[in-house]
């Protein structure tokens, strides 16, 4: 006779904190998450500049601009910048996403002003030195060779090209010929066009208050002039009408990498709340249907998951696994089957509750540090979510019903409108894949191969 587990104690509420926002005269908005538990401050600057801003013939340029910020300013050379960062034990990161860039600098409280000054220098006075550009491009060229040996990278690239032909969202990966087109002048030009305090936010999170954050921001950022450029405008991508199977021939692969994509919704669409719950049921974690089926039941893989990639104009649900090559066909079939089944009958109550709790639990864990609360707030404001978005997040997730999950799955989890990418040695899988229809074949460089 099994004993049932102990029930929960009394729930403790967690309040999303007030995050004050102070605009400067140049329209840069300063946000503060105050928390003096540790004597450090995380600075983050979010800019409306991403991969989509790269030119159509050079997907590398946005990333290059951001990478070169720390390689020389009108005040400091690259070595001097490196020296300042290391000497005062700062942690610098610069991440370029599809539609935004986040520069962050974590520093001990007592060196805060040095960090604010440095961040201002990097973002306002870069000079894009020729020599550093060359060095960066050479390293990048080697990195590309590495990237192209990674099945995950190849699958992702192929999928974005398939969903977004002729659309800025296809700019997820770089080709060697893009690097040939990178020049100092082009980097400078792109920088001048898009870097501006308007639509940008500067966050201080940690041992600091609004007054001091405002004072430091005024001192180091207020004379940064806005350039008047608005946001990049581009159309909604086209719909996918029928299923496609894309095979990337990667010789000598000892496993098959599968990635199945479905179009969903833009990030800020209110229907993303039920979509998130639906994704959690399908493949959001180690208790989800994909994981239970492909790993725990069949033993085809070490792990199978699904996740969401959402942007201002569109979003994708991606389901993937690295599977034993001789189970490629079965694994793909099971992924399609799990997608369809969720649209046929609503999830069990227990499964639904668990999926919601997982999302809520992850949300609570994100509220553990001032830096991660600050990041949530930056993204909320940047994307234009309503003021009470996070305060209402938990109740809105809780309110999603089993019937809503079914309807959501019916609308979005349609295997017949998916694009599936298979990365494997074609000799081991091509025949098996033909069962699903026409197989389009590519090499690892992204060039089509004949069938």
């Amino acid at each position, binding site marked *: 006779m099994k004993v049932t587990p102990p029930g929960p104690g009394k729930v403790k509420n967690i309040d999303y904190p007030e995050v004050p926002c102070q605009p400067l005269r140049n329209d840069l908005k300063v946000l503060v998450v105050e928390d003096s538990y540790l004597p450090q401050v995380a600075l983050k600057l979010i800019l409306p500049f991403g991969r989509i801003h790269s030119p159509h013939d050079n997907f590398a340029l946005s990333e290059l601009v951001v990478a070169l910020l720390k390689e020389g300013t009108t005040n400091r050379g690259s070595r001097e910048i490196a020296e300042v960062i290391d000497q005062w034990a700062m942690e610098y990161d610069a991440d370029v996403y599809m539609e935004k860039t986040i520069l962050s600098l974590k520093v001990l409280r007592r060196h805060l002003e040095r960090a604010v000054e440095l961040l201002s220098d990097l973002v306002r006075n870069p000079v894009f030195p020729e020599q550093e550009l060359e060095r960066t491009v050479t390293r990048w060229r080697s990195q590309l060779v590495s990237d192209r040996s990674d099945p995950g990278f190849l699958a992702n690239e192929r999928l974005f090209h398939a969903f977004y032909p002729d659309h800025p969202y296809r700019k997820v990966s770089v080709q060697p010929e893009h690097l040939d087109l990178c020049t100092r002048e082009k980097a400078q030009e792109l920088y001048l066009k898009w870097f501006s305090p308007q639509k940008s936010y500067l966050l201080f999170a940690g041992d600091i208050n609004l007054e001091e954050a405002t004072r430091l921001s005024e001192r180091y950022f207020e004379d940064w002039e806005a350039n008047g450029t608005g946001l990049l405008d581009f159309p909604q991508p086209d719909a996918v009408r029928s299923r496609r199977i894309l095979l990337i021939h990667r010789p000598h692969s000892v496993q098959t990498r599968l990635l199945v994509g479905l179009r969903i919704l833009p990030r800020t669409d209110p229907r993303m709340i039920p979509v998130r719950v639906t994704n959690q049921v399908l493949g959001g974690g180690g208790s989800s249907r994909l994981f239970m089926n492909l790993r*725990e039941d069949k033993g085809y893989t070490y792990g199978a998951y699904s996740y969401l990639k959402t942007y201002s104009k569109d979003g994708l649900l991606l389901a993937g696994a690295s599977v034993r090559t001789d189970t490629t066909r079965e694994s793909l079939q099971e992924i399609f089957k799990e997608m369809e089944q969720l649209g046929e009958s609503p999830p069990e109550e227990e499964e639904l509750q668990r999926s919601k709790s997982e999302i809520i639990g992850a949300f609570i864990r994100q509220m553990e540090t001032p830096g991660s609360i600050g990041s949530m707030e930056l993204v909320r404001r940047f994307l234009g979510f309503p003021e009470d978005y996070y305060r209402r997040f938990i109740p809105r997730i809780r309110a999603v019903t089993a019937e809503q999950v079914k309807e959501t799955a019916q609308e979005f989890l349609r295997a017949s409108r998916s694009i599936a990418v298979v990365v494997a040695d074609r000799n081991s899988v091509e025949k098996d894949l033909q069962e699903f229809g026409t197989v389009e074949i590519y090499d690892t460089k992204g060039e089509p191969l004949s069938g």
Partner: protein
Amino acid sequence: MSEVRTVEFEEHYLSNGLQVILHAHGRTPLVHVSVHYRVGSSYETPGRSGFAHLFEHMMFQGSENVGKAQHGLYIDQAGGRWNASTSKDRTNYFETLPSHYLDLALWLEADRMRSLAITAENFENQRSTVIEEKKQSYDNRPYGLSYLRFDELAYSNWAYAHPIIGSVEDLENARLEDALEFHRRYYGPGNAALVISGDIDTKETLERVRQYFEDTPDRTSVNHPDLSEEDQTEEKREILKDRLAPLPAVSMGYQMGHLGSDDYYVLSLVALVVAGGDSSRFYRKLVYDQNWITSLYAGPNQYRGPELFRITFQIQEKVDPEIILAAIDEELEDIAVKGVTDAELEKARNQISSRFISRMSTVSRIGELLAHYAVLHDDVHMINRELDYFLAVTNEQIRSVAARVFDKRRRTLLLTVPEATQ
């Protein structure tokens, strides 16, 4: 250093030998529960490689009151996060969940400590999952095979030389009886440390721990492995061809002392001087000046037994590895003769202090640190003392340790070269 918070904790032992460490930290309503078993791949015997890690998988296959894979389901239902990992020296199981679910986590850990369901079916399924994990993480990944090969080459003692993931042959030959015996020998309260960190009342929590764990009898009989390593007297070198590797790469390691030895503190600082950030010596010379290498890592791992001062990097196309090695040797010899500069030492100390501050940011990080000190240092108090060991390192120590350790005869070097696939 006054900026670094002292971590307050309580340490208790139950009558069955279970070590219990409690840390109250109520800033967010979360709790982290972690069980560390003092067993890792170094406790395996030849022919039975991969067992400690395979066991990590078995621990999610159910116990007397918990069904197969239900452990994760329960934690997920509570909105928690769970995982496990295996190293050469220990295996850990942990969950972070809303604090009102503390009882659930304790009940689950106690149930699988007492009554794991080791059935033929579970065993078979997890064996094939692990074989796929090996392919995904090593066989199908660039440099994966070099990663496994390096320790085999560097260590003469099988305990640390063989891969944690094991060999496919051993995994295929593994028998159910061996799994049962492994569990009895190592998975009991007398060989474990339970850490609870987060939004808890320590007195009440200790009562709960007694309630769930105290009646679990201890049947462990631990064989601590002999980890001793012979002094190397001749450089070891090997070339490995990798069909998936895009660029040549080097892994090298110098024999040094274990975690917590003088060597460890001294060489952790040296690692920062040579490879800690863009202003470090190797980075300046090999990346900024010459553009010879792409990725770079240097430093010891955190092993209970003999460590290696590791240096790994990928080499740009058409660059001769020997030129790079010569440049590295030159820097290491310079440190062995002159030590580091005062500015470098100051910078490394700043970086270490900053890391010690940052690592206190979440209940899970603090919980794992407490367990780390309990299991690998055998002294939980080290959590509040260890920074002083780093800050006390002098330039004289740096010089003398560097002179002894950075000796080519004590070095292992593995060069991975891409193999043409067409």
